[in-house]
Each structure stands twice: as C-alpha cells, then as structure tokens.
C-alpha cells in the first residue's frame, strides 16, 4: 500500500487554481483573456466545475449602476461597513463597491441570462440591508437571473474558461501546499479517479476552495464544503482570520438544509413552538417575526433549548414550525411559490395545510485565509507569501467583516476574482522561471498512510456526525464560555478517536471512504479554530453572539488571526481593521467610524 503513496508524476503550469467555483473561474477567465496561451490548471473536488456551490446562489448580486440617479457606490460602501458591524476592511469595501458594475457588464457581455425589465434593460431588486442615502430607504441595487443567479455566474465563467483553454482536474483534491522560503510553488494533489498523487508546480497558486458549512449539522452548504482550503493553510503553518464570524440564517428547511426565504415572515408567516404557541411575541413584542435575522435565530434557538422544539424521527434535528396555513391562496401561489415548492419537494408538505419545519441554519463563513486587497495571502506577521493567493468564501480580504449582507457574496467572488487575476498576471509575466524540484511534499504520504493503515473500531461517519452536532449545539447561534469549552474538549477527543477509524476498502482509486476520512480531519481543524477564536472574543459582534458578553466592545476592534501547529493548540494573533475611508476625512467620512448596527 505505501508504494501507492508516492508521487506518480510532476506537472508544470503557470497558474494553479485550487477550486473551480465562481471565484476560481472568474479569476481563471480573466487570466486567460489577458494572457492567451497561459497554462491554467484548476482542481475541483466535485465531478465537474458546474457542480460547485456557487451554482446554488439564488437572489442576486449588488452593484451600483453608474447611470442610476438614486444610488451611489458610497451608499453601498456604507451599507457594507454597517452590516459588517464595523469589522470589514474599508480599502477592500471601496475597491469592490466601485468595480461592481464593470463586473456585471463582464457577465452580461459574455452571455449571462440576467432578468430584464420591459425595456430590455437589466432588472434590479431590493435586498435587506441595502439602502440609499445612508440608511434612508431601501434601494434597487441587486441584478439577478430569476432565482438562479449563482448558476448564471457559474455557467458564464465556466464557459469563458473552457473557450480559452483552461485545464480541469475534476475529482481532484489538494492535499499539501508546497512552501519554501516564504514562497509557494504549487501543491501535491490527489486524483481520486485514478487513486494517484501528483505534484503540480506553478508560478502562482490560488486557493479558491469555498466554504466550510459542513462543520455544522444544519447548513445550507453543499456536501463538499468541508473547509479543505482552510485546513490546507493551517497545515502549512499559516493563519486563518476571523473564523468565529459564522452566519446563521434563521429559517433553514429542516431535513435537506435549504433556505426558506425571509419572505415567509414578511408575508405573515408565524413561528410556533411544540405547543403551537406563537413565541416571537416573547422576544420582540413589537416586531415579532419581522425582527432582524440574528434576533429571530436566537429566539428559535431558545425555544429549542428550553424543550419547546419538535423532533422528527427521520432526521432527529430539533426545530420549530412556521405556520402559513392562515394565508390566502393568492399569497401561497403568487408570493411564495418557490419556497412552497421546496417544502413540497423535500419534506412532502403543503404550505396551505401543513405546519412547516424550520430552524437556524449555518449559511456563510465571513472569515477565511487572510489576504490583502490584491488577494495575496499573508502570514501571521502580515507578510505576503510569494506566489500564493486566495479568493472567494475561503478567503478573507475582509469585505464582509463579521456579518455579510445578502447579495454581497457573489459580488465579492466576481470582483475579487478579477482583481486577484490582475495581480497573478503580473507575477506570471514577471517570473521568468517556474518553481523547481526542490518544492517537495513533506507530510502528505505519512498522513494518508495513517488513514489507510488505521485499526480500531471507530467510524468516520459517526465521528463526523458527533462533531457536527456538537458544533451546532455549542458554537452556533448561541455561544458561552461553558458551551465552547465543552466543544473544544469534545473536538480533542474526536480528533484522537479518529486515529482509530479504519477504512473498509483500502484501494485508492475512487475511494470515497478515504475522502471522507481526509475531510473529517479538515472539518475538525476548522471547527477547532472557530471554537477557540469564538472563546477568545469576549463580546458580541455581527453574527458572533455571546450570551455571556452580549455587547460589542471596542477592545475587540481587530481581526482575529488563528494559527494551529498542533491540533488544539491555537495561537491567537490580531490584524488591524482598515479604516482608510474614515481616516481619509472626505465627505461622509463620519459614516465610516465605529457606528451602531441598528436597523
């Protein structure tokens, strides 16, 4: 068996992209457009780039049309800063908001099927948190492709990379970054279909591996979002920024983990507990169901904790009901047809007659691999690692701070994808030689040998389920010192038990079990950094809420940097928040100081 763990081949390219979702492909398309003939390789864990998580984004992407007399990029910057609970980096906020419309045109000109108004122009819709004139009223800022905007972005960017000659390695994972003298020369990759390890050497390596939602039991994320990119940089001795900034949506559909839109509450849906009591009145007497996302999520979680949730034996996930039965047929058919169809399709319920199961669900990770505004990865001392970049949900340049506004995630991946490409192009052109053979993999073989040779009676599936339940119960919507300390102890134990989880099938080709084992390691590492960073941050900010410290504190006005060389031994550092818009002192600069996040 160990013979199979050697490197089967070494391949060379100009640019290596780890991931093939929206950010990866937008970046790759730009490089190939500007440097025709460049060799760009993209690795994806899924069977084909089109299967990436970006394809599931629904609503739209925010972008200020320069021809819009009512909107301006400065308003979008303000909304993003306020939404972030004053933790976004203002240089990045400015960069993204100002280049947003150009990216809409890039997509439109290359064939994305945006929805149109009667005159044939791009339609726009409003979205929570997006306002004009510094919070005065909501604004039409999000362009969209029906309820499948992410699919439009994916299809368009994938098409462009295909057209310009990208090379895809499908069902292929990056298992070790090749670093030497503060420079990245590529990675060791494992080709699942063939069961072979290869070394990919590249002038520039871009990590665009997506989210980490599978750390939690209830999540809207795809099954492959197991935090692989974050684990990859942790294993290379590099830090993760703000891992504790995890967003939960109040109403995920229990079972499949699909979002049930806020619309359900705005059309008059009532949240009820096990005893069918409408409980929101106890938490937000005036706003009730229409209170902000985080407040509703905490209310639901409280009902569940106090034993007033419902458990369906099919999935054993405690939840509450949203009651839509009293709404008119007109509302069901005209205003919520899509969400109604989700309930029908995935839990076989009729929203007109049945109570519908919902609960807070993990949705987005604001933190990630720390980068500067060009997407260059930084170490714990904020020094750039040569040739290494990160973009998309796995990265944190920090556009979202501690709370992300709806529509800003797919905006980020498309704008940052392009901006990072510009930097990568400079490197590819300026670097005459490709990395040489001295970039070697140090630990992948030992790691995989341990997986394959493990003996014992533990089960990877069971350990994974326990971890996800622990994180959902102890480090999600509510966090306290006690709950997080318990979670950390549990994670240590699970990590130790995982060494005694044997594989049934030991052949490497197409071995899904082996993949699950590798993912478990990654999930545990990400879970540990989330828990430790959240324990360290003794305040509540954005999506990070501490029962024992419910107020935002100026003492924590910084980004957390977590490093972990030994499992469990997390070192906490800090990075200053960029306040360049505030410091520039221009008109409206006062809006970019530490303000209250109140809606």
């Amino acid at each position, binding site marked *: 068996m160990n013979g199979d763990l050697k490197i089967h081949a070494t391949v060379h390219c100009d640019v290596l992209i780890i991931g093939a979702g929206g950010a990866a492909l937008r970046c790759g398309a730009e490089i190939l457009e500007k440097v025709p003939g460049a060799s760009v390789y993209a690795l994806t864990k899924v069977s*084909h780039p089109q299967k990436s998580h970006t394809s599931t984004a629904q609503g739209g992407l925010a972008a200020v049309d320069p021809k819009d007399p009512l909107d301006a990029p400065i308003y979008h910057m303000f909304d993003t800063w306020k939404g972030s609970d004053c933790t976004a980096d203002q240089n990045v906020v400015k960069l993204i908001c100002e280049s947003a419309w150009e990216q809409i045109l890039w997509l439109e000109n290359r064939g994305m099927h945006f929805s149109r108004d009667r005159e044939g122009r791009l339609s726009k819709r409003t979205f929570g948190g997006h306002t004009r004139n510094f919070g005065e009223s909501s604004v039409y800022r999000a362009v969209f492709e029906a309820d499948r905007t992410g699919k439009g972005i994916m299809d368009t960017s994938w098409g462009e990379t295909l057209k310009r000659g990208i090379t895809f390695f499908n069902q292929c994972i990056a298992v070790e970054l090749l670093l030497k003298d503060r420079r990245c020369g590529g990675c060791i990759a494992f080709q699942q279909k063939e069961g072979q390890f290869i070394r990919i050497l590249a002038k520039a390596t871009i990590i665009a591996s997506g989210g980490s939602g599978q750390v939690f039991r209830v999540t809207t994320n795809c099954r492959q979002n197991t935090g692989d990119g974050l684990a990859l940089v942790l294993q290379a001795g590099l830090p993760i920024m703000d891992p504790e900034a995890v967003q939960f949506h109040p109403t995920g559909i229990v079972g499949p983990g699909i979002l049930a839109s806020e619309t359900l509450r705005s059309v008059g849906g009532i949240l009820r507990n096990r005893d069918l009591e409408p409980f929101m009145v106890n938490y937000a007497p005036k706003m009730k169901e229409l209170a902000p996302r985080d407040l509703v999520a905490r209310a639901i979680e409280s009902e569940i904790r106090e034993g007033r949730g419902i458990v369906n034996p099919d999935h054993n996930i405690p939840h509450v009901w949203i009651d839509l039965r009293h709404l008119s047929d007109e509302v069901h058919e005209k205003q919520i047809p899509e969400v109604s169809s989700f309930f029908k399709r995935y839990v076989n319920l009729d929203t007109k007659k049945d109570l519908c199961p919902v609960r807070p669900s993990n949705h987005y990770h604001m933190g990630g691999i720390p980068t500067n505004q060009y997407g260059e990865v930084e170490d714990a001392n904020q020094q750039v690692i040569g040739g290494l970049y990160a973009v998309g949900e796995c990265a944190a340049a920090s556009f979202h701070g501690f709370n992300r506004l709806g529509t800003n995630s797919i905006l980020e991946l498309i704008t940052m994808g392009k901006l990072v490409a510009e930097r990568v192009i400079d490197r590819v052109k300026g670097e005459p030689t490709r990395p040489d053979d001295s970039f070697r993999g140090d630990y992948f073989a030992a790691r995989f040998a341990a997986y394959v040779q493990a003996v014992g009676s533990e089960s990877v599936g069971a350990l994974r389920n326990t971890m996800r339940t622990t994180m959902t119960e102890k480090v999600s919507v509510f966090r306290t010192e006690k709950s997080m300390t318990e979670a950390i102890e549990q994670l240590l134990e699970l990590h130790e038990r995982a060494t005694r989880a044997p594989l049934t099938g030991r052949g490497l080709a197409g071995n899904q079990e082996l993949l699950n084992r590798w993912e478990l390691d990654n999930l545990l590492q990400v879970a540990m950094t989330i828990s430790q960073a959240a324990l360290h941050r003794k305040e509540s900010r954005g999506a990070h809420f501490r029962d024992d410290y419910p107020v935002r504190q100026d003492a924590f006005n910084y980004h957390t940097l977590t490093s972990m060389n030994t499992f469990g031994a997390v070192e906490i550092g800090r990075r200053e928040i960029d306040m360049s818009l505030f410091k520039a002192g221009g008109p409206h600069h006062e809006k970019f100081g530490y303000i209250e996040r109140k809606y």
Partner: protein
Amino acid sequence: MKTTYDIELRIRRYDPDQDRTWVQSYRVEAGRIMRFVDLFRKINDEQDATLTWGSSCEHGQCGSCSVRVNGKPLLACELLVENAVASFKTTTFFIEPLPVAKVIRDLVIDTDQAYARVDQVKPYIITPKQPTAQNGAHQISPDELERYVDATRCINCFSCAAACISDHSTFLGPNAMLAAIVRVMDPREGEKRQRLDTIYNENGVYRCHSSQACTFVCPKGIDVAHFMAMAKQGAITVG
C-alpha cells in the same frame, strides 16, 4: 399514516480494483421523508462504508446525484421515500448508474466523458456582438428572452440523455442540444453559422426520435422535446 418503511435497495456495484460488477442488496429502515441520498449516507454510516455515490448540493441544483431507480433516471436528492413507494408501488428499488459514460465505481460515472459532448457544442458565446444599450449592456426584451430562457435552466444532470431512445454512440444528446439552441437564440451571439452546423450535423438534432422521454424525466421540468421540435422545424433562427 405509516411513519417508517422497510426498504430494500438493490444497488449495482462496480469495483475497479478487481474489475468486478455485482448487485448488492441493502435493507434500510427509512422514515417517510428521507431522501434517497439520505439512504445512501445511512448505508455508508451504518452498514457499508465502501458504497460510492455522487452528490454535491443535494437540493436539486447541481445534478451530481442522478441515478436510475427502477429504470427511471432521476436525482437521488429529490426522491423522498414515501413518494418513491407511492409512484413505483413497491418497497424494493433497483439502483444503477446512468448509462451515459463509463462507471468509475458503483454509482459514480466518468462525468468528463459525459461532458465532452456538451463541450463540443461550445456552451458559451463564440463571437459576442457589440452591446446595444447605452450603459454597456445588451438590450434583450423579456419576450425575446422568454423564448429560450427555460433551456438555460439545464443543470447537465444527464437524466435526459439517459432516457433518450436515440443511439448514444452518435447523438450529442438532448442536454448538449439545449446548450447549442440557447446560443443560437441568444441575440448576443454573432457566430450563428457554426452553431447551426453543430445543431444540424450528423450527430445533431435529427438523431432525435421525438419520443419526448427527455421531457418526461427532466428534474427541472424543462420541456426539452419542445426545443428539439423547434430546432427540427427551423423555428430557432427566426427572431
């Protein structure tokens, strides 16, 4: 109302290490709203960690989990146990990979091979026209978009290709045809000639036997056969 079912899954398996194919039977106690992907995962966690299957989003948007259940191609993430029992009128299900590409292991097929047909029709704008609107975008009326927008909803799950009665060694397949038809109808595409050549060449739309099997199985509810018929009539080139 019954709350659990005793389900038998008979799964066609393939082990590449031994180049061996067999059918393996698993019994699973399943709740009524469990989906087939949940059953596969339950088998992995409780009975057989080696059973290999594909999945990604698990909410009907990526098409990674398509398989044949009792002969019908569908998405395993959308098939609820109680609906399966009701529509197939049995609690025994025979599960096979889609027959559109070679099998890698168990239910997982070589998607690269299947996608090669989509890549061939160039699923992008070959030569973009200049934008028509003053703000740098094209102006496309909602009516014009309406004619082809349904075809853009295809997720390439290959269910239609699996159900198609045409000869797979020649026909590019219904989903590849949809991708080509979208771009012929897209007013932004400047390269119509090459597109029409692809659609009407010997591996193109005339290989379609109009059985409408594609439309019947499409999990997104796209009337694939309608677009094929339009192409056969030449109705996709008229503005």
